[in-house]
């Protein structure tokens, strides 16, 4: 079984104007800026805004996660190399928890289905919203779906079941096969 690189640096590194997280080029924006961008998008396109943000992040993070694990092609797993998927999930959660969106915790993990349930406490983006009746963490859901696709190597989807913007005490995401 292939080993996950234990030396993957989770934290954000800023050196000479270049920003990276886990070796991937990143940019830093304030929570309020992200919320402002989302609200502008919602004003422009209505309910569709969530899908736009979700898909952009899903695609971006699928590519990033593959690179983090040194997998350049989606079919890497079919070439006789398998990885400890739980370890991959733990690695991605560790990286995510340095990114400022909140504190992600793994609640359920079923490699066979595949199925993952995570909670996010101290979610930052919902704090920029008034209470509403629909979730706002489409960006995080897209990140989780993209990460899960790199881990399980099949199309995955993520749905936010609870959101602090709706008055819940924490956010909760369910990740299943698409």
């Amino acid at each position: 079984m292939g080993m996950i690189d234990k030396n993957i640096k989770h934290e954000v590194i800023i050196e000479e104007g270049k920003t990276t997280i886990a070796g991937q080029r990143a940019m830093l924006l304030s929570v309020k800026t992200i919320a402002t961008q989302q609200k502008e998008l919602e004003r422009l396109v209505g309910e569709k805004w969530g899908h736009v943000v979700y898909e952009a992040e899903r695609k971006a993070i699928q590519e990033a996660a593959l690179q983090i694990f040194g997998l350049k092609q989606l079919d890497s797993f079919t070439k006789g190399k398998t990885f400890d998927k739980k370890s991959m999930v733990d690695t991605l959660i560790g990286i995510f928890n340095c990114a400022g969106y909140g504190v992600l915790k793994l609640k359920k993990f079923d490699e066979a289905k595949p199925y993952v349930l995570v909670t996010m406490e101290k979610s930052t983006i919902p704090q920029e919203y008034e209470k509403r009746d629909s979730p706002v963490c489409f960006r995080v859901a897209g990140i989780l779906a993209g990460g899960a696709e790199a881990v399980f190597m099949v199309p995955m989807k993520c749905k936010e079941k609870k959101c602090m913007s709706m008055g819940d005490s924490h956010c909760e995401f369910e990740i299943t096969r698409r």
Partner: protein
Amino acid sequence: MEMNSVSLKSRVSNVEYIKKRGKDLFIFSKQIVVLDVRGLYHMKKELEKGVEKSDEMLYEAGRLSLMEIHESLVASLGDAAVTILSDRESALDMLVDALNNLGLGEISVLEFKPAIKFAVKHSAGAQDYVNRKEMSRHPVCYALAGMFAGVCEKLLQSPVICKETRCIACGNNACEFIMNTKKG
């Protein structure tokens, strides 16, 4: 918990822009989130699927975000803000310095007069076009243009329009932006 610097110091004023508290990062006390820059490319592609005026939205979001950064900068400078920011060229250097810590690209001021011009190497909004060997017919750094407009509006105290005149997504070596006064 005490805030620790991430060892970033401005060449202009020794302001430490980015600070760390536990795992969280802050700029001028505002919490930051980290985004993979590929997200900008994919966001643009998603918007191109049928969202009208999405370029304007990205521009406006960039402009508003800079307003927020500027307000936070003023608050962090306290009583010294009026003195420090009264020298427009120094103030511009300081804001550019702050932006250079956000991973948006390597930003520099090309000209201050007669019009403010910026250059950006490795623009976060366009780098993925280069990486994917994809050529755009038009400049694509709308959010960055909006941010520069926000910088100059605060600096000049009047509305401006920022236009991207060169872009690495179009095959240029660097992205360039020019500021024009907004009429009417």
